């Protein structure tokens, strides 16, 4: 049966129950199965609610945020720690190589400034360490800056410092063929000696006016001669070397000769592109999520001082964003505010310096953030999906209940229809024991009534013969007396039966449905004390022929 018919039938049943103020069996079954389905779904709903599945959208987002925050924090923490450690080793190597060079040239480290013709040689001697460092570490540049200039008499010599800044623009092909480096700063002669090309923005020396941290670092190194390099290194804020094409964070370390002379600094760069490439959060769930490494100033993250990683419009159009915590949650995501709106995410303090470092007190943090509306959208989208599924299951359950109830009642209805239409066409078996029992019982009744009719006939023809068994007079009498109790509609049906019409013919003649005729039949049977059409026809014939068993 097609689905729309099932609904039509269900609707007809409901209308009938309303009209007749009765409850058809199918409707009862439907209500039973339907309530059962709703009950089971309700239980499921409660269990899922207790398990927290109803917040599946938000939970999924929370898991994502926790995973991303944890793994990015671990990565950044480990990588920056490793770079700090290896940068310290680099400073040691460069200092040792410089000591050798000073010794070879009979020079005291503090005399380098007055021997500018030795600078290129020193830088050339430092190149292998710098190149090796770049080859073996994931950073975008390595550099050395000496406290000297090749031309102390040149204009602005006091701000000019000799050195080398080796830049790598291919963060994604570390140690792969083609991962070349270029000179952004440094003597062209040294670059050519090592077959390294000059960048378009190349300049020979550093202009220290744009790097105030340099003087500060050298000063602190001189004031703390006993502190190891591991306690002297310094991570700058976001810094753009003049004419460099991208900003980055610089790790700076002093260069200290064996006699304690601080003669320059060295370090490495974590470029903005490298940071973005390495630490962008997975964007499958939240395309606009990003990670930010920033110093914390008064609890505020400042993108103009740190680096951002993420494949989003926000990061591509990075502007100076000052992001502060709006509300913090120990167990879940925190809310952050910036001038353009709100973010949801996490913020974890990052330890860039070891205990005893001169810069230990400088707080940094790594935050994983996404626009708040994205967070809410994801939560609602997943919940809508869940509720949609629940509704679909409920609808399917009700449809199933309707189908099962219909299939269950179908044999009963079929049997009743057969009984009402014509007792002679009664099925032998219906595969439902109760129906079969009922049919057997009706057969038994028919047999009894047949016997009764035979007896009546015999009594009429042979009145002298004593009748056997109980006389049927009482039933016939009740039949004739109760005809007067029939309603007009029932009387009309009754009269047509008297005239020998079938149920179908009566429906057609009275312009009513077969079900209406059946309904009247039921009432007629009840009022006249009969149980089948066969019995009705027997009494009707007797009535029509004016026969009274009493007369006989």
């Amino acid at each position, binding site marked *: 049966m097609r689905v729309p018919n099932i609904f039509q039938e269900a609707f007809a049943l409901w209308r009938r129950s309303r009209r007749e103020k009765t409850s058809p069996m199918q409707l009862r079954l439907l209500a039973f199965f339907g309530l059962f389905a709703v009950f089971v779904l309700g239980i499921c709903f409660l269990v899922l609610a207790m398990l927290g599945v109803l917040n599946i959208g938000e939970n999924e987002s929370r898991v994502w945020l926790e995973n991303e925050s944890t793994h990015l924090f671990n990565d950044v923490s480990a990588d920056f720690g490793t770079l700090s450690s290896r940068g310290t080793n680099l400073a040691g190597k460069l200092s040792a190589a410089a000591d050798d060079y000073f010794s070879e040239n009979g020079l005291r480290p503090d005399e380098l400034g007055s021997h500018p013709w030795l600078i290129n040689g020193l830088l050339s001697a430092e190149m292998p360490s710098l190149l090796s460092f770049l080859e073996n570490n994931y950073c975008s540049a390595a550099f050395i800056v000496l406290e000297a*200039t090749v*031309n102390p008499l040149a204009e602005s010599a006091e701000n000019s410092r000799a050195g080398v800044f080796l830049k790598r623009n291919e963060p994604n*092909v570390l140690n*792969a063929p083609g991962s070349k480096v270029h000179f952004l700063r440094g003597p062209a002669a040294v670059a050519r000696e090592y077959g390294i090309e000059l960048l378009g923005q190349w300049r020979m020396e550093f202009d220290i006016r744009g790097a105030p941290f340099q003087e500060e670092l050298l000063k602190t190194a001189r004031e703390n001669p006993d502190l190891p390099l591991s306690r002297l290194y310094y991570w700058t804020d976001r810094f753009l070397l003049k004419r460099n094409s991208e900003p980055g964070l610089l790790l700076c370390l002093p260069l200290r000769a064996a006699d304690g002379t601080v003669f320059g600094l060295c370090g490495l760069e974590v470029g903005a592109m490298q940071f973005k490439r390495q630490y962008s959060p997975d964007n499958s769930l939240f*395309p606009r999520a990003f990670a930010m490494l920033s110093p914390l100033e008064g609890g505020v993250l400042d993108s103009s001082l740190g680096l951002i990683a993420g494949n989003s419009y926000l990061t591509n159009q990075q502007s100076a964003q000052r992001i502060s915590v709006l509300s913090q949650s120990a167990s879940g995501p925190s809310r952050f505010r910036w001038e353009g709106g709100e973010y949801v995410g996490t913020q974890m303090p990052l330890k860039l310096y070891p205990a005893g470092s001169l810069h230990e007190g400088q707080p940094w943090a790594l935050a994983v953030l996404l626009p708040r509306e994205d967070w809410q959208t994801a939560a609602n989208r997943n919940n809508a999906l869940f509720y949609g599924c629940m509704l679909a299951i409920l609808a399917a359950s009700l449809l199933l209940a309707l189908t099962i109830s219909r299939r269950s009642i179908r044999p009963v209805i079929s049997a009743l229809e057969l009984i009402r239409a014509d007792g002679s066409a009664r099925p032998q078996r219906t595969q439902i024991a109760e129906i079969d029992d009922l049919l057997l019982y009706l057969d038994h009744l028919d047999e009894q009534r047949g016997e009764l009719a035979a007896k009546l006939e015999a009594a009429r023809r042979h009145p002298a013969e004593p009748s056997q068994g109980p006389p049927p007079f009482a039933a016939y009498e009740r039949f004739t007396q109760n005809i007067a109790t029939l309603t007009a509609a029932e009387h009309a049906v009754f009269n047509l039966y008297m005239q020998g019409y079938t149920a179908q013919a009566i429906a057609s003649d009275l312009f009513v449905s077969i079900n209406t005729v059946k309904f009247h039949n039921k009432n007629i049977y009840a009022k006249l004390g009969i149980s089948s059409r066969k019995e009705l026809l027997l009494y009707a014939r007797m009535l029509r022929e004016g026969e009274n068993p009493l007369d006989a």
Partner: protein
Amino acid sequence: MKRFFATILCALLLALPLSACAGGTPRLDPKNPVTLSMWHNYGGDMQKSMDELIDEFNGTIGREKGILITVEAISSSAELQESLNSIAAGDPGAPKMPDITTSYPKTAILFESKGMLANLDEYLSAEDRSAYVEPFLEEGRLGDGGLYVFPLAKSTEILYLNQTLFDRFAAETGVTMESLQSFEGIADAAAKYYAWTDTKTPDVPGDGKQFYAADSWFNFAQAGALQQGESLFDGENLALQGEAYRRIFKACFAPSVAGGFAIYDGYSSDLSKTGDLVCSTGSSAGILFYGDTITTPDNRTEQVEYSILPFPIFQGGKKIAIQRGNGLVVAKSDKRREYAAFLFLKWLTSPEINLRFVAATGYLPVTKEAFETLLPRAVQSAENPRVRQMLETVTEMQASYDFFVAPTFEDFDALSKRYEADYKALLTAEREAYLTGGSYDLAAREEAALAAFSQNH
């Protein structure tokens, strides 16, 4: 009811092939943007221009359509090609291929032969196609004739002249600018310059300075052969036995050995930055790599002026120069990603956007409208005077020169690299032999070197 369901089913069945027909325009979702990685070689001073364009795309069309371009690497053209070669060769440790990258056809063909590139013809309508300068599109057709290298910006080779140094030299030696119109004239001027600079330090003999260098001696040879009516190639092999190549070889041999020509393993702009060169031939797109100062080893800087001259020709030859410039290739992927990449390329090469990039970087546009109508206006509006001068020269060359495109075949890249490396090695060795002293018979060595070099290539 049956009829109703049958109608729905038929409609769905009909809609399926129709939607397949519309497969050229896959659906993009702004709420679920496609993120495309990109490598390009527009570094240095050009990076700002490209960054701004990418940001503009991401913030406008990209945001509207659901496309996000994220730049993952910026490097020199040569290095990018090396990385791409390692990807194409499947080298261990090679990086993941980006969704979009700049590439020369000679490298792109390696990817195309392995089915790793998207055929952009699938997304280019006839109307789109007609908007581009036809030869630029043709240059990007590889293998099966499909469009695999999308033109973004083109360049040719020109002569960069440090006018400040040259004027100083010309004033004392009488060498004129006309001599720079031909390679023979340049060779002659180079010899005079070396001698002139050598005399500046009489106490140090043999320390003359170099005058000229070519960024690509292979392009020099290709152009030289065509200028003389011959080709450097015989099929997919070099043809170095002809008279034209003999002249090309000789035009460089003596000046290189004597020190007037620089044999340098890098871009000539490096030598120019330190005043170690007066002129060089190189890509017009290299304009921003030439600074406006020269820095001497003692860190003194001098403000200098550059002139941009047309590509020189061999005396009596035709005015022919190379048309070069890489394009953008799109990695083969699902249709949605390919289409998103195509939309970005189409936007990037739309006349107005393309011209903005061109005017800031020194490339030539690739659409007819930008090339024929807007370029003259852009020349006047270019902010950088050096770029303006270059565009003027290139526009002048467009009117009087014929341009050629390097052939594309699978071994082309390897062949050109081998030529370049062997040629430089040969001249460097000869230069060292020359400096060692003793009896160096220039003519005899030249003949022997030419014979050996031609034989080996």
